[in-house]
């Protein structure tokens, strides 16, 4: 049976009470595990990597939530950790790949998408994933937050420390690139 969703403010209060801290931790994991997983998975592609990053996010939350000053919302704070961890993971991966295969750090994520066991080149959802992976990491992040998570620009701005205008421009150009990619692939 699904647990009812508790507002973030209430979860924070529960977390700060030593008697209910553990319960609050469970509730926060339950509330955010899926959306954070998919956000991370779209960034890092491979399930095992996404799992690793997601666990780190919750462990960091466990360690850092006591110091959370509520200058931002809990959900944007969690997305910030997830985004930072994902970008850091990708940077590490690219460094390794750069050593292994010189001059091939841009295309390897597209290749990773193609290596997914469910990959089907004829399906548009996979073409879309390939198009997304062709974007620079930070544009990919903005596109994913806006398109899939429907995060308002104001929240994104607070989370990423970038003006809403720059985020809108970034999203706009990400969509343009995706459109060009899909147009080429689908001939529409």
């Amino acid at each position, binding site marked *: 049976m699904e647990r009812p969703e508790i507002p973030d403010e209430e979860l924070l209060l529960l977390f700060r009470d030593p008697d209910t801290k553990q319960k609050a931790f*469970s509730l926060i*994991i*339950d509330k955010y*595990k*899926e959306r954070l*997983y*998919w956000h991370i*998975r*779209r960034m890092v*592609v491979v*399930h095992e990597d996404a799992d690793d990053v*997601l*666990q*780190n996010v*919750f*462990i*960091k*939350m*466990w*360690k*850092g939530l006591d110091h959370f000053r509520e200058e931002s919302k809990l959900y944007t*704070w969690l997305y*910030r*950790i997830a*985004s*930072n961890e994902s970008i*850091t993971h990708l940077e590490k991966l690219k460094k390794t790949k750069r050593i292994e295969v010189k001059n091939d750090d841009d295309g390897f994520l597209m290749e990773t998408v193609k290596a997914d066991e*469910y990959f089907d080149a004829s*399906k*548009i*959802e*996979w073409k*879309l*994933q390939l198009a997304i992976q062709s974007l*620079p*990491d*930070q*544009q990919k*992040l*903005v596109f994913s937050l*806006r*398109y899939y998570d429907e995060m308002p620009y104001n929240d994104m701005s607070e989370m*990423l*420390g*970038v003006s809403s*205008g*720059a985020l*809108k*421009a*970034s*999203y*706009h*150009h990400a*969509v*343009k*690139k*995706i*459109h060009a990619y*899909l147009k080429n692939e689908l001939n*529409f």
Partner: protein
Amino acid sequence: MKVENDIQEILKQWQAASSLPFATPYGLPEYYFLNFEQALLERVEISDLEDTIYLMEKHHPIMAFHAPSGYFDTLENRIQQKINSEKPGKLKKLTWYKFAAAAAFAGIIAFGTARYFHQQHNNQPAAVTVTPVDIQKVNSRELAEFAEESAEGINNVATAKKTLDVNQLLDEVSNQDLQNFLNESSAGDNDMF
């Protein structure tokens, strides 16, 4: 055809009778017609983009990726286990590193201070604020705490706000594209999408 000719004839007569100019009084933005085609094409492109997004959302909202079956059911336990197993192990590990870091730190400070003290002694025998004796007063525990605080600081980096680099955010976007976007957004909605 005849009716149209008649109307044109009547209009010409009116114009001649009243000396009205043919030009309309309305103003026109500079280079409006020159840039019209380009502006129109951009609008078409934006409309195409919106159609693309609409199609993607309407017909293909499903995610391409899959999570292994039962993954989310066991996630919490695995995180909890990791946190529980991390505590003693990490403490042991940290203790070793802490004291190694503390010893190295004390060594560097003592060496640096002794060297500084030696140089000062040779050149000008002025008062030195930190001496090896002072360093000895700092016990291992304090140094270990310093090392632990530094380690915690490093751990907190991921939870801190990481400002995106606007240059990377707009990577591969030409100045012309950016200008077009700014023109479009200032002329239109606040929120294009």
